[in-house]
């Protein structure tokens, strides 16, 4: 018999429900049946492992992916990926995407009449180091209008996709900026009941990572599901429980 700890369930109130009516796109896409509780098995406590060789080393600097420099305010976005016990999550993939400084995505569906920037794609990826640290150089994304409701505007944000050590620890989220006046009105930012949980999506201005004469630093620490303290039980074929 092997004992491997599974991953914790989310703390009540800290995650969005699938159906959140103020976010109109959720109304026809959220399942209506209750989720079926599934005890974690080997399938959920393992997950994709990515080798550092797949990384494009240029992908962590979104300001140097073209011949010229993108327009807008250069920023450093960095932080640590930790588990719920504040232990670092090393060598895990972090993927980001975002609008340019004018609030326009390089995507054929984005019809916002703000200019594209030939020097900015808005995608990046990197892997955390042994201490769970990651760092991107990018441009502060612009706010932009969207069709959710009358005069709807998304606050400035950067999308994050993370893996962690297992299928169970996958996370996709968005990072916001302190003091953004649109935050109280955004149905996506406000989709979660717990105010503290919401506010942890807001990055903090950080002198320590600010580079003089170059770029302001913003710190965004990300927490992935941590291990259960009691191991789940797995049994090899033929063993008696």
């Amino acid at each position, binding site marked *: 018999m092997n004992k*491997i700890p599974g*991953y914790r369930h*989310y*703390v009540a109130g*800290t*995650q*969005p*429900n*699938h159906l959140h009516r103020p976010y109109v*796109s*959720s*109304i*026809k*896409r*959220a*399942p*209506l*049946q209750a*989720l*079926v*509780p*599934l005890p*974690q*098995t*080997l*399938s*959920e*406590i*393992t997950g994709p*492992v990515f080798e550092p060789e797949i990384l494009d080393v240029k992908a962590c600097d979104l300001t140097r992916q073209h011949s010229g420099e993108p327009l807008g305010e250069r920023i450093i976005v960095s932080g640590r990926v930790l588990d719920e*016990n*504040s232990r670092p999550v090393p060598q895990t993939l972090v*993927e*980001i*995407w*975002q609008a340019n400084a004018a609030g326009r*995505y*390089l*995507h054929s*569906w984005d019809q916002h009449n703000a200019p594209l920037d030939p020097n900015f*794609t*808005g*995608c*990046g*990826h990197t892997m955390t180091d042994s201490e769970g640290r990651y760092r991107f150089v990018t441009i502060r994304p612009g706010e932009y209008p969207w069709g959710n409701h009358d005069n709807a505007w998304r606050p400035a944000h950067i*999308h994050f*996709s993370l893996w962690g050590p297992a*299928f169970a620890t*996958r996370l*996709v*989220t968005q990072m916001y900026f302190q003091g953004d006046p649109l935050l109280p009105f955004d149905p*996506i930012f406000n*989709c*979660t009941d717990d105010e503290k*949980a919401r506010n*942890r999506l807001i990055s903090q201005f950080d002198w320590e990572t600010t580079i003089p004469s170059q770029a302001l630093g913003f710190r965004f620490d*990300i927490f992935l599901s941590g291990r259960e303290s009691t191991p*789940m039980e*797995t*049994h090899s074929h033929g063993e008696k429980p």
Partner: protein
Amino acid sequence: MNVPATTWQTIGPFFKIGLSWLYRDNLAAPGVSGERVEIAGRILDGDGKPVPDGIVEIWQADSHGKYAHPDDPQEKSAEPGFRGYGRVPTDDEGRFCFTTIKPGRVPGPDGKLQAPHLAVSVFTRGLLRRLITRIYLPDEPSNAEDFALNLVDAGRRDTLIARKIEGRAGALEWNVILQGVGETVFFDV
């Protein structure tokens, strides 16, 4: 210090910018052992309309039932060249398709082997967090005794089992119905 896991947010409609570099629609490189299967389907919303801004991610064991992951304690080696990871977007008609090998059986929590299955995450604009589901294979006797399938109401189990496409060997259909009639079973792990 205990800090709850970070709150999920939707991937939104423009994820292709950031996620397409890791699209993988063929998990079965030449030389990897196992029975090839092509799994194709659509993501549909509560009105039966196709979801053109979705992603399906796959995680599965190799044909011997071993995961390419250090926490798999089974005393057998993982198939070289098989990573078990797939990521496919939907097209304008909500369609997705990937090729893989039939996974072997892996241990379950009850001392029995699970039926062959793929762990699946579904992401779309409008989903504030991912939906977790599984794909099982048709004509698989072990489905009857699979612990996860048996957690599901009998009337909804078939939403987790891919269907054979007649006349095309190895071709399977599996759809994701996000809401309403025939709603796919989604799990809380």
